């Protein structure tokens, strides 16, 4: 079970499967390296405000992203870099946005918590916990009313399970029967509190209570998530019904960059780091043992490094956003 051919149980199509795995690897590495670079830029004072990294949680974003098209819509959270990149937001647009440059996805007006790309169905990261859920629901309604074969995905954290808006969304989705996939990323933390001190509920039972099909996944196993989400999204496209997916994962970084994390102990942090979905996939792709795999891995790293280098360089060279233009964009 440590080879990629175990996935998705379809050894006859080994190469396709393997290509999928490599695509997921590339997607995860891109997210990871972008965020690592953002962390450095933040430390160097090149990223203003605050940023929340999804290091350790890349598998979920990558797996979902791989199952979605531009017509599909995603509403994300404050921890949204991964969702954005996986949904197709170019690295350059994301990096420039987080750095507050005019070339950013939102012309530097929103920053990390508001990266959006409406043309690619990315309805925005969101600074308000839980607020993305009803927005995704509304986009699912639009898909249905407009007769598009598209689905909407709402990402939210385990801490967000305390917000009323998430329940209102479950209920409304169940009543209206729209193609909405609600995805809870259970990274064990709600800001500085363990999430079991922030949410007393049980996802599976909640889903059952609202009659939503439910899936609990190991969110650090990208192949498992992808194997499950592919058919799930396909089914959602067909039956246009809502469902709930719960992904267990780990928040490796602090709540935000610069968070001293005094509230975490060493073993817990070590366990979070050890769950690394990239390392897990690398092991399954035999990156350490197989020379071709290692070469391919290194190539991806190099390409992505180059992509990020170029993005950062371009962002640095980009002008400051224009104030009057911004002011003029309050109304259409």
């Amino acid at each position, binding site marked *: 079970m440590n080879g990629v051919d175990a996935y998705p149980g379809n050894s006859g199509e080994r190469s396709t499967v393997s290509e999928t795995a490599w695509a997921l690897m590339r997607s995860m590495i891109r997210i990871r390296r972008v965020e690592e670079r953002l962390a450095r830029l933040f430390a160097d004072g090149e990223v203003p405000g605050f940023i929340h990294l999804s290091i350790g949680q890349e598998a979920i974003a990558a797996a979902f992203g791989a199952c979605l098209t531009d017509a599909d819509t995603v509403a994300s959270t404050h921890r949204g870099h991964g969702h954005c990149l996986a949904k197709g937001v170019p690295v350059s647009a994301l990096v420039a946005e987080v750095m507050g440059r005019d070339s950013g996805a939102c012309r530097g007006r929103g920053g990390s918590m508001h990266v959006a790309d409406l043309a690619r169905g990315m309805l925005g990261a969101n600074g308000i916990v839980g607020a993305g859920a*009803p927005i995704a629901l509304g986009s699912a309604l639009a898909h249905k009313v*407009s007769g598009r074969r598209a689905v909407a995905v709402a990402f939210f954290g385990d801490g967000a399970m305390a917000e009323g808006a998430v329940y209102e969304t479950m209920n409304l989705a169940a009543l209206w029967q729209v193609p909405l996939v609600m995805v809870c990323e259970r990274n064990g933390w709600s800001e500085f509190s363990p999430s079991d001190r922030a949410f007393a509920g049980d996802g599976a039972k909640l889903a059952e209570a609202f009659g939503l099909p439910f899936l609990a996944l190991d969110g650090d196993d990208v192949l498992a998530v992808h194997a499950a989400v592919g058919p799930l999204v396909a089914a959602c496209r067909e039956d246009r019904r809502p469902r709930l997916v719960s992904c267990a994962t780990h928040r490796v970084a602090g709540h935000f960059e610069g968070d001293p994390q005094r509230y975490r102990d060493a073993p817990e942090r070590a366990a979070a780091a050890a769950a690394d979905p990239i390392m897990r996939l690398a092991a399954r792709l035999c990156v350490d043992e197989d020379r071709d795999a290692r070469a391919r891995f290194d190539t991806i790293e190099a390409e992505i490094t180059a992509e990020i280098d170029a993005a950062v360089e371009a962002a640095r060279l980009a002008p400051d956003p224009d104030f009057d233009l911004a002011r003029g964009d309050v109304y259409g």
Partner: protein
Amino acid sequence: MAELRFAKAINQALADAMRDDPAVVLFGEDVAAAGGPFGVTRGLLDAFGPQRVLDAPISESAIVGAAVGAALCGLKPVVEIMFMDFVTLAMDQIVNQAAKARFMFGGRGGVPLVLRMPHGGGLNAGPQHSQCLEAWLAHVPGLKVVVPATAADAYGLLRSAIDDPDPVVVVEHKGLYALSETVDETLVRVPIGQGRIARAGRDATIATYGALLREALVAADRLAAEGMSCEVVDLRSVQPWDEALLRESVARTHRLVVAHEAVEAFGVGAEIAARMVEVAFDDLDAPILRVGAPFMPVPFAKSLEMAYRPGADRIVAACRRLME
């Protein structure tokens, strides 16, 4: 010419907009099968079907959030908040999401969403079903706020609101729904941000909007009998509001009263007065006076609500004070 009820004008605007544009959808609590708590959406479910006219559960936050998401994806949702008091439950979606999206996303898309909500007292509906909270929304960059005073404007402003590429809040006074007026056969759009002179006058300007327009006109009648000629300006929109029109009026009359049903303190009248003092200071022959509700919740009992609500009497008194 024809008789038109205010509520029917809204209904007609919705029907016409839905006929003209398949992207227009309606949702809200009991707006579909039941035709709305005030009957405003009656018949629309039958006319346009359950895909476009949807009943929603009692979830103001998710209802508005869904409208934001739908608006970002090509629909033009028109949402009803049953009483304006319940907007308190949807402020995040309105203020943090709908209002900011265009700006925050770099001007690359907007939220063409209409929120209809009845405000105001007079029905003895008590402190949680009578508030006028439009000043909150007018304070939020990204929102537009209109408050029709007549059936023709109820039609015309709602049509413009639905056409608008941005979120527009249409505030309707509950006390107007049942009132009828004589209107032109052909109802037309009314531009957002454009006021109108409802009655011309020389000695003072009364600026108002919504249900208080009728009171202002009554006040002007009474004052005319006393020899004071008042111009009545119906603002129609409070965000943006027609500063130029009011400026011109004040340049002629040199005196201004701003009247609304909302609580006076920190109400819409404050902005209008503050702005007019800035741009028309040299034209003013008297302080700007405001007529608004006293600083207390809307009381329930008949006698209390009667004493609470501003009307023609207080407008008359303010105008008289201006002439002292």
